[in-house]
């Protein structure tokens, strides 16, 4: 249970980090919060030859608010998200979900960028970024580009980042005032990996009909899983109990293939998805109605 040897770099600037990434592309690993990488290194599942620690680059840790978005530096700790007033006011889905991420001790170190790049299908932040339609800024020595969250997660523990790129910023769009939200998950114990979880957003028009619905699931497949058929059922409709039930059936029975694990069978995960979808849609709808008044 000790990591294999590696060469360690702790650059003070992003430029220096990008130079190192360019030099050691494909061999080096970025150390962000280390809450997933260090366990993997302790198990020797991951044995990077170079480790580039971003923790000394203070310019990568910030939460900045403007009219249309909130920009979050990749090295911002999950604990900072949890207590940030601009996120509480303007991205309530994220605010509600962050306390579900592991334990306070983990959130004190874990970063938004680290969790996104790790791309664990059971993690909360990838699902939340997907649901919120966040944009992610990737930078390398040769330039920068923006990637939509939905294009960023390409598979299990796999992202669209090139070997020499570093995720440096997350841009969260600030949603309309008529969008209700809900995040729910079921875990054997608070802070454990969830067996199933869902992020739901419901936007209502002035007449209380669903203008837009978003459902994204964690631990339901190889990455964040969306259920477009269920969303389509809700469009232009008042969210009646029957309709919510139909959406929950579509999402859980037709649109996902959870793998199961030592704690749960795929059937039980689907059952949880059904129940959580029903509850989350109702809560999101109720909150949207509250905002209409």
């Amino acid at each position, binding site marked *: *249970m*000790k*990591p*294999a*040897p*590696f*060469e*360690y770099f*702790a650059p003070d600037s992003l430029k220096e980090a990008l130079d190192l990434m360019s030099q050691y592309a494909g061999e080096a690993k970025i150390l962000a919060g*280390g*809450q997933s990488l*260090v*366990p993997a*290194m*302790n*198990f020797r599942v991951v044995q990077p030859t170079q*480790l580039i*620690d971003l*923790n000394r680059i203070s310019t990568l840790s910030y939460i900045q608010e403007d009219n249309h978005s909130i920009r979050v530096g990749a090295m911002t700790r999950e*604990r900072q998200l949890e207590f940030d007033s601009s996120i509480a006011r303007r991205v309530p889905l994220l605010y509600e979900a962050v306390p579900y991420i*592991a*334990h*306070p*001790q*983990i959130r*004190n*170190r874990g970063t938004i960028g680290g969790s996104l790049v790790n791309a664990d299908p059971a993690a909360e932040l990838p699902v939340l970024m997907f649901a919120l339609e966040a944009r992610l800024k990737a930078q390398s020595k040769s330039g920068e580009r923006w990637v939509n969250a939905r294009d960023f997660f390409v598979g299990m523990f796999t992202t669209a980042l090139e070997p020499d790129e570093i995720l440096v910023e997350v841009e969260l769009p600030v949603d309309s005032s008529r969008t209700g939200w809900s995040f729910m998950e079921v875990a054997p*114990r*608070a*802070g454990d990996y969830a067996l199933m979880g869902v992020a739901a957003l419901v936007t209502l028009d002035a007449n209380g009909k669903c203008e837009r619905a978003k459902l994204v699931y964690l631990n339901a497949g190889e990455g964040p899983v969306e259920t477009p058929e269920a969303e389509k059922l809700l469009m232009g409709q008042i969210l009646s109990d029957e309709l919510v039930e139909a959406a929950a059936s579509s999402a859980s029975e037709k649109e996902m293939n959870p793998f199961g694990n030592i704690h749960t069978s795929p059937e039980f995960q689907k059952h949880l998805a059904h129940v959580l979808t029903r509850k989350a849609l109702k809560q999101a709808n109720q909150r949207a109605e509250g905002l209409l008044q």
Partner: protein
Amino acid sequence: MTQSIPITVMVNEKEYRREVEPRMLLSDFLRHELGLTGTHVGCEHGVCGACTILFEGESVRSCLMFAVQANGYNITTVEGLAPPSSSPHLLEDGGREGGLHPLQQSFWEAHGLQCGYCTPGILMTLIPFLKQNPDPTEDEIRHALSGNLCRCTGYQHIVDAVKLAAEKMKQS
């Protein structure tokens, strides 16, 4: 080639200088390099919470950090709760108070530990928790403890100890 990196770390308000290999975990550094064996090592992958310490005042898993990352930072371990000079030799009847931190004293009085393996990590989790939440409900206490495994107590006496500590710490 093995890299060796000089670091300076403040642990329990005392400065230590050492040279470390980058792969040395902070938990091993505290135990093997500094001899501070109060920090326990359980699972070494962030699940059990036994190695929890304060890093710049916040609870973290010391098995999920490298010692080099602590260069220039402040750490508190369980040894820092009650300085050794103020710890009287504990009598069998438990009669002498004053040498323990109120949180430790409460664990003793409420029988909040049996084998004691998880205790340092639990104490270091609770210090910032009680600072942020001096009057916690039982639910909040159980939630705060969710990242620390105890295989002896069934947690009930730990919860009792935290309630007692909250009272003691309010008074002091």
